[in-house]
């Protein structure tokens, strides 16, 4: 992979990392309402996906994909403001973390009922096909979603109708506290795709170079009209469960120190003489500074106008107010 692309991926990863770290800090301060799921530890997956999609594609982000929303092209401050529930957010603060859509960049929003979007993505893929566009619909789902009936309904229909759907399965090993292998017939989720004879691969989701290469290939395949593609990204989330950490110390060490996505990318670039530490530090510093401006923007933004509470329930019809 050429050096510039890797550097660009690295910057993208930092956008995810810095965004989530800033967000988490503000959440702890009480500035972010609701619940918080972060993409920390999964930066490489998000950078790889962002690297392969174009604005006319559709993507359905999962609950940890805040960084991806920014990488897709929405100004960071508008995503941050949405998560703060502010008027300046992409959905005027009505969606929040789990529902931050921005059609202008192909962001179709999350749906907090895990798996639901797998069905929605079929429709986008089908419509694009009917409209003779060569765009695709990517849907990002966690390993936990593999239990849902919609998983099956979606994969089956996408395969049968050869729809341009990219399944990005982020296998971070757990659904909240439950290990993927404890609740599914296999812990290697790409194997599920065998039932549908669907193209399917597993990739190291912490190795951004590999993840980006595989994602690009899958996107290529889909654009050629060959039907859907399933990618399982093996990764690990830093966030434990709400009440704290529950995973073994050695597992934590492996993923947060040894097989950590930033470190792997840095090692790769240094080894391949793509960049030195100074350049990489500068990228990090630049991104972090930028994220702070987004947080400031979000903090300083006003809450939504109260009339928004009853707006857009129905298209064209008003609902009763108090």
């Amino acid at each position, binding site marked *: 992979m050429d050096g510039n692309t890797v550097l660009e991926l690295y910057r993208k990863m930092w956008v995810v990392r810095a965004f989530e770290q800033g967000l988490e800090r503000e959440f702890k301060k009480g500035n972010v309402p609701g619940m918080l799921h972060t993409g920390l530890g999964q930066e490489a997956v998000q950078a790889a996906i962002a690297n392969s999609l174009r604005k006319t594609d559709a993507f359905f982000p999962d609950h940890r994909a805040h960084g991806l929303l920014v990488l897709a092209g929405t100004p960071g401050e508008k995503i941050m403001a949405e998560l703060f529930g502010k008027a300046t957010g992409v959905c005027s603060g009505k*969606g929040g973390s789990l529902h931050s859509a921005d059609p202008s960049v192909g962001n179709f929003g999350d749906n907090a009922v895990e798996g639901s979007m797998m069905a929605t993505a079929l429709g986008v893929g089908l419509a694009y096909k009917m409209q003779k566009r060569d765009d695709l619909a990517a849907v990002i789902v966690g390993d936990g979603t593999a239990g849902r009936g919609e998983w099956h309904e*979606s994969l089956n229909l996408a395969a049968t109708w050869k729809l341009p759907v990219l399944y990005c399965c982020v296998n971070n090993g757990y659904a909240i506290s439950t290990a993927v292998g404890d609740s599914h017939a296999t812990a290697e989720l790409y194997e599920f795709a065998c039932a549908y004879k669907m193209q399917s691969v597993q990739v190291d989701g912490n190795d951004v170079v590999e993840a980006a290469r595989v994602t690009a290939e899958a996107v290529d395949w889909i654009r050629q009209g060959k039907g859907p593609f399933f990618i399982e990204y093996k990764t690990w989330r830093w966030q434990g469960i709400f009440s704290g950490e529950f995973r073994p110390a050695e597992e934590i060490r492996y993923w947060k120190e040894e097989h950590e996505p930033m470190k792997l990318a840095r090692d790769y670039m240094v080894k391949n003489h793509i960049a030195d530490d100074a350049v990489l530090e500068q990228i990090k510093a630049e991104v972090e500074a930028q994220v702070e401006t987004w947080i400031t923007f979000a903090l300083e933004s006003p809450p939504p106008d109260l009339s928004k509470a009853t707006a857009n329930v129905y298209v064209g019809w008003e609902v009763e107010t108090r």
Partner: protein
Amino acid sequence: MKRMSFVQALNDALDIMMAEDERVFLLGEDIGHMGGDFGVTRGLFTKYGGERVRDTPLSEAAIIGTAVGAAMVGMRPVPEIMFADFLGTCYDQIVNNAAKMHYMFDGQFKAPIVIRTAAGGGFGGGPHHSQSVEGWFMNVPGLVIVGPSTPQDAKGMLIACIENDNPVLFLEHKALYRVRGDVDEGKFSVPLRKAHIAREGTDVTIVASMKMTHEALAAAEELAAENISVEVVDLRTLRPWDTQTVLESVAKTGRAIVANEAPKMGGLGSDVSATIAEECFSHLKAPVKRVCGLDTPIPFSVPLEKVILPNKDDIKKAVQDTLAH
């Protein structure tokens, strides 16, 4: 004007909309060369092809999800769920996806889908093929629920629904499929959110919909012989329903019966009754009465089913009781 069945009127509406607008497409189980379980899509597969009249597997959640996704990018999908009873298998898609999308993304997306489905009982279909399901969805903001009672309304409202930008649950009562009536030719639409005075009267208002409208009209006819003048309001749009027409009627008559095939507790009937009682308090000469299904699932045996479903005679008796109050 042409005489046709409810099924034919629906078929005509789909045909007109598909011919006119290539964004309109259908999907569902056996709607293709078979033409649907009740024949509503008959002939459309041959005319428009398998791309626009799509047979699906028994994947109700995917049917609705697919429709929603396609609608988000400009299509006008008309999914069919073979029997309304099966809507439980895609309830989440309707309630949490289709109905909330426009709101939660603050207007950036919309989900103009029309979910056609066969509802209602009275033919020995048993517990899973006979239910009136509007009550399942009445408490869902963002969703439109429509239930016509005549071929003319069936056609005009289906066209209106396809042209409307909101997600619609379009209920087709199975007992009405073979009912025939005069239907305007060509394209026209019957407005949503407008109830229809199916019969004018002065003594008591019956608010009904779908099959119950016919039961109410039959009751009204018989009551006329007893010199009782009944006004029948056919809701047509069940959510959000036309409070104005209903309240004006009750303000005039001072008495109201609400007829609904579903069980009374927690059904559409309760919503209408509560609203009338609250808003027409000073006009009411007697308590509103709900004539509804009994609080049971629907039994297979036809004589038992007759016990639990409300009919013309139950309505008549309610009118008489109300007038005797």
